[in-house]
């Protein structure tokens, strides 16, 4: 028995490194060859179409997952309220658009102004949602920063219910419809019928991830974030304002979630007070899957989840989708507890 446990532990240690990555990629390639490749030959158009849907769904999950992963990376808090921050961001965006008369089921009559309006309102939504998240952090998490880990976890759960409650009072139990403002033109790509909205979402998500990545890598604030994540005390000694750095992290996470919320509403057509619960769970799963604290990992995890969901919904049976996603998650995490690309969390 002891030898089995020991062997298992050794396997895990070995798999956490480079070897594990190769094993995982090997399994991935094998699954691709066995399950996906025959589908490509069977009907390449359907395959490509499903691929685009999966990438779009994954890109939307990624925008939420980045907030989870950044917050966990810096203060090791699972911010359960993040999914609801995403929803409230989308609803604020819908409100701002409606103030300009851009409401659902009415043709937008703003013509060439659409692009500046889209960008302007999105920026304003990011700002407002970011500020909300900073306030949430100050009120519910900061006072508990030096308390046992469970305390802020529970305030995060509480904050999640509070936000859902506010949205329920605001909009009731029905779906809140969004105007369809993303330029939607369909074109044929190798026979597949692609919507420009799908490309916009994928490009925006990947672009924001690249900007975020270089911000964290190269900017002064990004360096402060990494230093805070690595060793908070040492960072304080180096003159880094910890509170401000954590606030910036929450702000950026919420701003990205707000973009996600708006794109989600445009693409799927609506949001409801509890949309963030399911979406947040998927995004959090993606963040852990990719290696929590790791920005590229969160995006990779989200894309994998989006693709598995789309391919299983398209080719398999929907009742199995969640079983398969979480089955893969359990398999990956038992073999490789640090996730696909490795965790980046504070050192002890």
């Amino acid at each position, binding site marked *: 028995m002891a030898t089995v446990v020991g062997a298992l532990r050794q396997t895990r240690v070995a798999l956490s490194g480079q070897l594990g990555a190769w094993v995982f990629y090997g399994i991935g390639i094998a699954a691709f060859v066995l399950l996906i490749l025959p589908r490509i030959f069977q*009907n390449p*158009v*359907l395959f490509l*179409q*499903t691929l685009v*849907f*999966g990438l*779009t*769904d994954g890109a939307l999950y990624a925008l939420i997952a980045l907030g989870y992963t950044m917050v966990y990376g810096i203060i090791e808090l699972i911010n359960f309220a993040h999914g609801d921050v995403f929803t409230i961001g989308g609803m604020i965006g819908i409100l701002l658009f409606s103030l300009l008369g851009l409401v*659902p*089921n009415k043709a937008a009559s703003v013509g060439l102004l659409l692009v500046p309006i889209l960008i302007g309102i999105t920026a304003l939504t990011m700002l407002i949602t970011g500020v909300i998240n900073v306030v949430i952090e100050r009120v519910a998490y900061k006072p508990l920063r030096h308390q046992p880990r469970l305390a802020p976890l529970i305030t995060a759960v509480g904050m999640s219910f509070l936000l859902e409650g506010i949205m329920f009072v605001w909009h009731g*139990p*029905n*779906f809140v*419809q969004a105007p*369809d403002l993303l330029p*939607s033109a*369909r074109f044929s790509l190798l026979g597949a*019928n692609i*919507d420009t909205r799908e490309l916009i979402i994928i490009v925006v998500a990947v672009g924001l991830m690249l900007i975020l990545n270089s911000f964290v890598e190269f900017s002064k604030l990004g360096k402060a974030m990494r230093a805070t994540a690595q060793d908070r005390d040492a960072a304080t000694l180096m003159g880094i304002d910890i509170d401000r750095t954590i606030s910036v992290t929450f702000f950026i996470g919420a701003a990205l979630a707000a973009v996600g919320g708006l794109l*989600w509403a445009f693409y*799927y*057509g*609506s949001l409801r007070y*509890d*949309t963030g*619960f*399911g*979406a947040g*769970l*998927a995004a959090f799963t993606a963040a852990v899957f990719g290696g929590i604290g790791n920005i590229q990992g969160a995006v990779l995890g989200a894309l994998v989840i989006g693709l598995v*969901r*789309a*391919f299983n*919904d*398209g*080719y*398999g*049976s*929907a*009742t199995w*989708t*969640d079983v398969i996603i979480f089955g893969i998650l359990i398999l990956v995490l038992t073999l490789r507890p640090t996730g696909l690309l490795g965790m980046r969390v504070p050192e002890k």
Partner: protein
Amino acid sequence: MIHHRALKGSGLVLAAAVLSFACGGGGGTSGGTSGGDKGTIKIGVEMPLSGTEGSQGQPILKGVRFAVDKAGGSIKGYKLQVADYDDAVNGVHDPQKGAQNVTAMAGDPKVLTFVGPLNSNVAKNEIPIASDAHLSMISPANTGVCLTKEQPDSRFPFDAACGGLAAQLRKGNPNNYYRLVTTDDYQGPAMADYFLQILKITKVAVASDNQTYGKGIADAFSAEFKAKGGTLVGTRFDYDQQNTNDFKPWLTSAKTAGAQGVYVGGVTSTKVCIVRAQMQGIFDPATPFGGGDGIVQDSECVKAAGAMSTNVYASIAAVDPTHVPSAKATIDAYKKANPGPNDYTAYSIVAADAAGIEIAAIGRAIDAAGGTLPTDPLKAREAVRAELAKTSNYQGALGSTSFDKNGDTNVKIVSIYAYNSSNPDDANNEPWKAQVNYGDATPTVQTS
């Protein structure tokens, strides 16, 4: 059973004793018995009367009042009154509140029977309490299969997973629950027959929200569609309404498999109309989309479906009063008495018939008791309940009604409607398209 018979027997003896004092009482409804010299009988109405469903509950209450007025406000020397009970809490129907209302009715010796409730899950909480009080009830709207029977119609077999609910609810008491709409097991097959016979489409993709109601009507649709020569294409999509947001991968694969139409079992709040919206760009807007009464006459569904909201077909498990020639006089009289723009719905006339059946049963119970009902409310209610169970060929606005041994109406008609506008304000004006009659061995689809 025996115990109750003994009670009723003694009631008859008592009634016989006072028979000599009571006047003949025959033909008394319109015979100028304006006063309540024998006392007052109350007919309860148990509905969500406020909140979002108030717009459905109020026209039903008005329908019952209309029927009582039509009976002259009295029956064989008793004064008739309508007692209304609201089961909405915070704007939504509430099973607990419904149970409290029935307890209140059971505590009022004048309430002998009632019309309600609107929602099947409220009925589930009410039947046991009403059953103990021998309080009979007729719902003008419940379609849940398991409230009255263990198995769906054997022509449309699917697993309704009732688990003996109907028997549990009645706790061994004689049946006290009746309804004037038919059950969910006919809704799916009706749309299947409509798709095949009228829309002439033979390849359909089917999905459901994987909940009891949605999965049930989708299963029944599938069984009938296959049995009548149609083909189900693509994979059956039983989605998780919380985690599934993107229906396009499934819709695309269904389209690739040759689907000419889509049927989804579920309700507006479980994303059924969002599935329709996401058909945009994959299917032509003319492609028919079918669903049950979970999406019928619902402005939220039209909002969710957006530009794709036309050619959305939905069913109601009841006859449409405007398509029953004999109902016209009643509808006109009702509208004259209730001229408000939101006073009339199809259920107003159903409710008027429900109250009419109850008034007729009260009348027969009075006659059977020799002109005066027992003073013990339990005995009086049991007398009314027993007569209600015997209802046969009642001639109401909607035609002839009898109850089967489960308490279900023998009228097994499903009406089909289609949204013809993407304007949510037009949701109630969803035009009638057809009705499918399962009362006969071979169902017929009528489009006029």
